[in-house]
């Protein structure tokens, strides 16, 4: 037997011996309802190929345009955003996120900085004044949740820690969304196993959904009646992205128990007070457009052609104006058929911007 084999045996047994029962042995876990989506696989693969071809077509046909920078009407008055550095091309990953700042929606002036937290995520209520922030104060600390209210001139007025129990196993959040009534927070958890949780902002009570499938819920939004969660799901096998619905009032713990809305669209923005949401689709005709779906049926109810590539992130509280970003990463608003870039001073070349209001 070689020296390396000896060392391997010794190290592995030492590591294994370090694992001892701690406290009471948990009971045999209950039966988990199988999630059977085998029949979806060929469809998702086909849709992924179509989406890829469509995306390439859009990229080829989309000619660069001169940025249209105007000073829009300031509703909502402020948004929160951060300069981000994207990771490897095509992955959509964020390599680095700068500090979160409060910006005037009309002038683009930075009015305040949010508390600096590690692994931070922020969600806006849509009124441009109320924001929910999650993150850890120190590297080893648990993720905590806060509600921030801005003063009329865009500074941090009130900051409250929410009574949501800290879970030390949570390593970070992939997405955070606040319900239109401000009473519920939905967040996608990066833990030992990924799941989606919904917390009652007042009581701190948390409900959790999981799935046997491998994937990540990387973006989510609430429907108008604060009941249905719309989320983008990245399926690992077969790789594909889809928009899904989850009725949070129904019993059950399976994240993927709800409807699949569409296999081509991502990044939903839900209309407040309404029963629909929009997502971006590259489209097979080479024109980027927004598609409107019903949150109750999951069926497409409308379509809107936009004259420039635009990825929506949030509606404002009135449901008339969409916040999003245009190709290149600059923030923009959409209340007609062409996105209007929101002035933003100091966005370094090659960087993107993430924003919510």
């Amino acid at each position, binding site marked *: 037997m070689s020296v390396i084999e000896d060392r*391997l045996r010794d190290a*592995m047994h030492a590591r294994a011996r370090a694992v001892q029962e701690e406290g009471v042995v948990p009971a045999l876990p209950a*039966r988990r309802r199988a999630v059977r989506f085998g029949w979806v696989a060929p469809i998702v693969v086909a849709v992924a190929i179509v989406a890829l071809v469509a995306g390439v077509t859009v990229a080829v046909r989309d000619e660069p345009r001169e940025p249209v920078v105007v000073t829009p009407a300031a509703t909502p008055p402020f948004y929160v955003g951060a300069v981000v550095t994207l990771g490897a091309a095509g992955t959509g990953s*964020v390599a680095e996120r700068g500090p979160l700042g409060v910006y005037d929606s009309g002038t683009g002036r930075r009015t305040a900085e949010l508390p600096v937290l590690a692994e931070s995520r922020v969600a806006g209520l849509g009124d441009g004044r109320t924001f929910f922030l999650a993150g850890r104060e120190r590297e080893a600390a648990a993720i905590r949740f806060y509600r921030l209210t801005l003063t009329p001139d865009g500074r941090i007025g009130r900051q409250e820690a929410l009574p949501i129990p800290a879970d030390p*196993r949570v390593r970070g959040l992939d997405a955070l969304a606040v319900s239109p009534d401000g009473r519920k927070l939905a967040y996608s958890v990066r833990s030992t196993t990924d799941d989606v949780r919904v917390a009652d902002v007042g009581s701190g009570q948390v409900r959790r959904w999981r799935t046997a499938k491998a994937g990540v819920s990387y973006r989510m939004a609430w429907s108008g009646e604060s009941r249905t969660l719309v989320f983008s799901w990245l399926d690992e096998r077969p790789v594909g992205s889809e928009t899904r619905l989850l009725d949070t009032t129904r019993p059950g713990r399976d994240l993927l128990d709800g409807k699949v809305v569409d296999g081509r669209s991502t990044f939903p923005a839900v209309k407040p007070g309404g029963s629909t949401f929009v997502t971006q689709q590259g489209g097979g005709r080479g024109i980027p457009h927004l598609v409107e779906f019903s949150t109750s049926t999951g069926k497409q109810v409308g379509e809107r052609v936009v004259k420039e590539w635009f990825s929506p992130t949030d509606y404002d509280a009135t449901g008339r104006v969409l916040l999003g970003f245009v190709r290149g990463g600059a923030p923009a608003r959409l209340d007609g058929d062409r996105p209007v870039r929101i002035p933003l001073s100091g966005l370094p070349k090659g960087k993107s911007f993430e924003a919510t209001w």
Partner: protein
Amino acid sequence: MNVKTSRPPPALAEARLAALYRERRLELIRLAVLLVGDRETAEDVVQDVFARLHGRDPGVLTLAYVRTCVLNGSRSVLRRRAVALRRTERARGAVESAEAAALLGESRREVLDALRRLPGRQREALVLRFYLDLPEAEIARTMRVRQSTVRSTTARALARLNRELGGNA
């Protein structure tokens, strides 16, 4: 016409599953720790495996079968980590507890770090061979590969560890 079924009663399957869980849980967690790198994830892998084994024919509920399930569950976790690292800014994979790291000592940590850097199949082959001391045939059954593949995978893994650990090996 009465048709007799040879399927055993569900109660037998549940009893066998409960016994496997009671007697083998810790052993399976230890196996998963060596595959995924940290205890919390390993516990989740084992819990998930047992949650999915309800209702299975008691004939398949053997330690070897459950080991294969743990192996598959660990692969799935590692793949998800890889996807997550690609999609988001996740910076860390498994995090060893400070206590476990302190107990191991420098030399063993070096070996385990090198083991963690191996491709998944190579790591699995080494864990099954040198931790569980399984014969080649059983490793092949557990990994669902041929014996010759087990031999070549193990040889490549050992060669790589020898290179990585340099003169210390």
